[in-house]
């Protein structure tokens, strides 16, 4: 493996990101308002930007690692992440765009007219965001260690510095194009090697024995119905509750176009997951010796030099490294922006200086956590964050959009029950271990019952409370009414 080439790729990604960022900033200077500028962005770019922010180290490196480690069960993760956008499309995209809220706390505050509910939402958003950044930093450590034999803390610290620095400098907010570029880079960085691998493998003899490489027990036949259902529901609903997902819909001009943008996102992330899954299948054929926890996640980085020796393999490795860096940067910077605006609004009345300090703070905390913990499987860590978001925030968001009688107390109670029960289950799962049969399964995949508990609590407390906000009818009618015409929108917006 050629370390110099990989480091050159890393530097190139950082430089290109900075250049596009500065160029994007200049474009937004020429218009009166960034948000108006972003409405001139074509849906394809908008969808690319959303996908660029969404696809993280979890699926870039983690998916192929988990396919190698535990078989076809791993495919449920990308299926859940993609189908989550179907849920966003059908239940959330247009109403949230029409709400005009930029962040989840904004939406909850406007909908329930409660400062307490807002503060609690902000706290949960912060926790979810931090938990989500940690695996990105772990991924960065892992990647740099593999390609250039650099100590783990360097990778995590580098990504944290780049992300925290660029967000604090004020760059990332206006850069739809940066995220869009990072998406296409990530897709190319998996799809191009996948095609090369497939060609190489099809030419090699002897053929592999499918029954050994793809054993039936690790395939779809070994499906656990409860664990799969619980995981899928957690992943689907978790997408709705992620802090950096909602923000991007605001760049669509209308609720209707927000829907088409979401359709675009589903197409783009599906293409990415198909490429990523292909790498996973190839990993089982070509690198079975890497099937050990901690090492498996590096398989996407190691495949090129194994399958294609020489300079071509080095170039492909550099491409994969660049894509992995794009995955860490895109997701972390999107998250840090969302978190910093939430922190600076809620704690410091949203001044620019406070936004910058918030960006530093929001990067520093997960960096400390990342340095203090050992990387677990990347895709499962990200999955856990989704399940937590699905338990703590998603029920309240969905009820807020679709159920008139939700009250502030109901929402607060639901969020607390969801967050506490999910945390307890995860701690309990670590304590009990995998050996306790049904209990282990219930604790390891808690989504099904924690989400139900949070939803039921919200509904029951709201009904008993009965203090439906006076503005509920007005807000709901706004969330669900189509915009009248583009002309009026331009005049009003």
């Amino acid at each position: 493996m050629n370390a110099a080439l990989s480091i050159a790729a890393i530097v190139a990604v950082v430089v290109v990101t900075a250049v596009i960022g500065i160029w994007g900033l200049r474009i937004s200077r020429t218009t009166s308002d960034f948000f108006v500028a972003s409405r001139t962005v074509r849906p394809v770019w908008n969808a690319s930007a959303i996908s660029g922010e969404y696809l993280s180290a979890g699926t870039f490196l983690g998916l192929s690692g988990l396919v190698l480690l535990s078989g076809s069960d791993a495919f449920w993760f990308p299926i859940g992440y993609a189908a989550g956008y179907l849920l966003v499309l059908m239940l959330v995209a247009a109403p949230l765009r029409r709400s005009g809220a930029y962040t989840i706390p904004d939406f909850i505050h406007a909908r329930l007219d409660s400062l307490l509910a807002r503060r609690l939402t902000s706290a949960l958003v912060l926790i979810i965001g931090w938990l989500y950044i940690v695996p990105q930093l772990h991924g960065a450590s892992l990647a740099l260690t593999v390609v250039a034999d650099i100590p783990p803390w360097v990778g995590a610290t580098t990504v944290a510095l780049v992300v925290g620095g660029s967000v604090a400098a004020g760059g990332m907010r206006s850069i739809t194009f940066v995220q869009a570029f990072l998406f296409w880079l990530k897709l190319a960085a998996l799809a191009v090697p996948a095609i090369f691998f497939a060609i190489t493998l099809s030419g090699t003899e002897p053929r592999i024995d499918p029954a050994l490489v793809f054993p039936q027990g690790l395939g779809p036949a070994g499906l656990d119905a409860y664990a799969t259902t619980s995981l899928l529901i957690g992943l689907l609903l978790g997408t709705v509750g992620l802090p950096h997902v909602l923000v991007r819909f605001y760049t669509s001009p209308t609720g209707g176009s927000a829907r088409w943008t979401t359709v675009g996102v589903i197409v783009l992330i599906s293409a990415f997951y198909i490429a990523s899954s292909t790498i996973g299948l190839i990993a089982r054929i070509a690198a079975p010796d890497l099937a050990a926890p901690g090492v498996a996640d590096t398989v996407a980085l190691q495949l090129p030099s194994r399958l294609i020796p020489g300079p071509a393999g080095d170039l492909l490795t550099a491409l994969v490294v660049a894509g992995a860096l794009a995955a860490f940067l895109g997701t972390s910077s999107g998250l840090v922006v969302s978190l910093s605006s939430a922190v600076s609004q809620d704690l410091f009345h949203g001044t620019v200086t406070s936004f910058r300090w918030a960006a530093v703070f929001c990067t520093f905390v997960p960096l400390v956590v990342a340095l203090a913990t050992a990387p677990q499987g990347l895709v499962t860590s990200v999955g856990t964050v989704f399940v937590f978001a699905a338990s703590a925030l998603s029920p309240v968001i969905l009820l807020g959009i679709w159920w008139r009688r939700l009250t502030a107390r109901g929402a607060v109670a639901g969020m607390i029950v969801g967050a506490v029960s999910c945390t307890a289950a995860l701690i309990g799962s670590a304590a009990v271990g995998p050996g306790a049969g049904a209990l282990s399964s219930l604790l390891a995949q808690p989504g099904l019952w924690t989400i139900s508990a949070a939803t039921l609590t919200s509904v029951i407390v709201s009904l008993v409370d009965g203090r439906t906000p006076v503005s509920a009818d007005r807000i709901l009618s706004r969330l669900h009414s189509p915009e009248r015409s583009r002309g009026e929108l331009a005049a009003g917006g």
Partner: protein
Amino acid sequence: MTENGTGGGAERRRGASRPPRERVTSIDAASARTDPAPRTGRWAVGEAETLFTRTLMRAQGRLAIVCLLSFGVALVLVTVVMSRIPLLDAIVLGGVPLSWLIHAYGFYPLMVIWAVGYTLACQRLEGRFTQLVEHE
């Protein structure tokens, strides 16, 4: 808070200086409370309109639930087919059993089909609603 609800305020604040994002979006407690009684410019809340929007909301909710349930059924069907038919493990394409291939690739086309179908249906629904309101 909201694009329309604080539109005037946001406009004023935008005019004052370069637009740092927070000032446009901020909904700190103080400003939220001093805002005038919120009214939406787009749809004034007449009684007939409330009725219309409630009907529309229910129709959209029904559409979303029908689409989600049917997608769920399709998901379960594909899952059952790939996990409970041993023959699919025996068919090998390019070195990979068909059941694994279905698991890796088979669900994404379904999502795209459902996403496009739902969006078209929703557009029709909202188009009908807009016509209805503008006739009033």
